[in-house]
């Protein structure tokens, strides 16, 4: 506050005054206002240059702030996976997210993540816990805080989860850029992947695909999108097996393709476009 002026007699406790607030300046990081309290039209108190910080809360984050046990920060797609578009940048919001979503051990795990993966790691945890909470709610569970769900990685990278009420929840997490997705299931291994659809050199696709797969891709209307989709499908299947592609996507071959759905390594995979990305996940 720059200045507070009092005019006339100090108002008494419980006295009702009229308040006038004028917003002087509004910026992404702060708000400046002048305020007047008036008694029967005569100004009693004037506050000049009142300044407050604005935080990066939006319509999605606000309900989570008010009732984290009842609201998701991610969107649940009808297909069942969670999608978290992580646009939050400020240090305050990131710290807030980690406190609402991570337990003590998980915060220690976050501290060990390198600078390159930090943001996406956190976004993946948000998507994962929201996917598990949505699964619990579909099973009729009541409010669940994100910190009631523990997510950690096996040494090989595969995520593991401990949730209240359900004994055997399996989980897969993926991210690219600002997007994180996760798929949770009871008693069945699942895999999910998200990749940006973009042109890559032909040699890149040579490394990924067999000759038969390349022919199938070339025969589609949008080969770049189809190639990316098949890559993501392979990654999703590899993850459902608790492995990665290990730098060799040709190891898992496309065994069938029927319009929207793919079959890779004998496992059925579905897909959906999310903006300039494609999401692929395993189904039963």
């Amino acid at each position, binding site marked *: 506050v720059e200045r507070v002026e009092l005019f006339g007699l100090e108002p008494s406790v419980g006295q009702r005054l009229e308040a006038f607030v004028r917003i002087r300046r509004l910026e992404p990081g702060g708000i400046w206002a002048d305020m007047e309290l008036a008694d029967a039209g005569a100004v009693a108190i004037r506050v000049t240059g009142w300044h407050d910080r604005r935080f990066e809360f939006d319509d999605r984050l606000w309900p989570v702030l008010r009732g984290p046990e009842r609201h998701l920060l991610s969107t649940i797609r009808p297909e069942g996976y969670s999608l978290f578009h992580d646009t939050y940048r400020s240090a305050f919001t990131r710290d807030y997210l980690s406190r609402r979503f991570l337990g003590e051990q998980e915060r220690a795990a976050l501290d060990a993540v390198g600078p390159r993966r930090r943001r996406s790691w956190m976004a993946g945890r948000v998507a994962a816990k929201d996917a598990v909470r949505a699964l619990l709610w579909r099973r009729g569970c009541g409010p669940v805080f994100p910190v009631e769900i523990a997510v950690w990685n096996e040494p090989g990278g595969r995520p593991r989860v401990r949730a209240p009420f359900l004994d055997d929840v399996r989980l897969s997490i993926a991210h690219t850029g600002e997007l994180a997705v996760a798929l949770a299931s009871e008693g069945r291994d699942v895999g999910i992947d998200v990749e940006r659809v973009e042109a890559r050199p032909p040699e890149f696709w040579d490394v990924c695909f067999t000759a038969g797969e390349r022919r199938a891709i070339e025969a589609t209307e949008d080969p770049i999108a189809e190639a990316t989709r098949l890559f993501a499908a392979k990654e999703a299947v590899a993850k459902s097996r608790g492995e990665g592609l*290990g730098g060799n996507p040709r190891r898992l071959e496309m065994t069938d393709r029927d319009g929207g759905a793919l079959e890779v390594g004998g496992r059925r995979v579905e897909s959906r476009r999310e903006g300039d990305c494609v999401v692929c996940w395993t189904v039963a």
Partner: protein
Amino acid sequence: MTGKDGLRDAEREVLEGLAELIREVIGETWAEDIPITMDTSFEQDLELESIELVALAERVRERYGPGVDFTGWLSGMELDQVIALRVGQVVEFIAQCR
């Protein structure tokens, strides 16, 4: 010839070339500053994503020719070996192939 750093000249040359390819694949400003040595881990230090490992394989093939089958070499490994992979192992592999 073996230099002060214990590397043979051929290995040092491959290390410099491979480090350049890795920086291209990562393509972020911070990658310019991170030291890439024989001991650098792809998973722990570089935090390479799956698709980036494939992109690296493609660049290795482009630079060193089909005689260096990086992808085939990787596919012979178990998952924990891929996770533990260090730059030095790739350098030695490429140097052997040539």
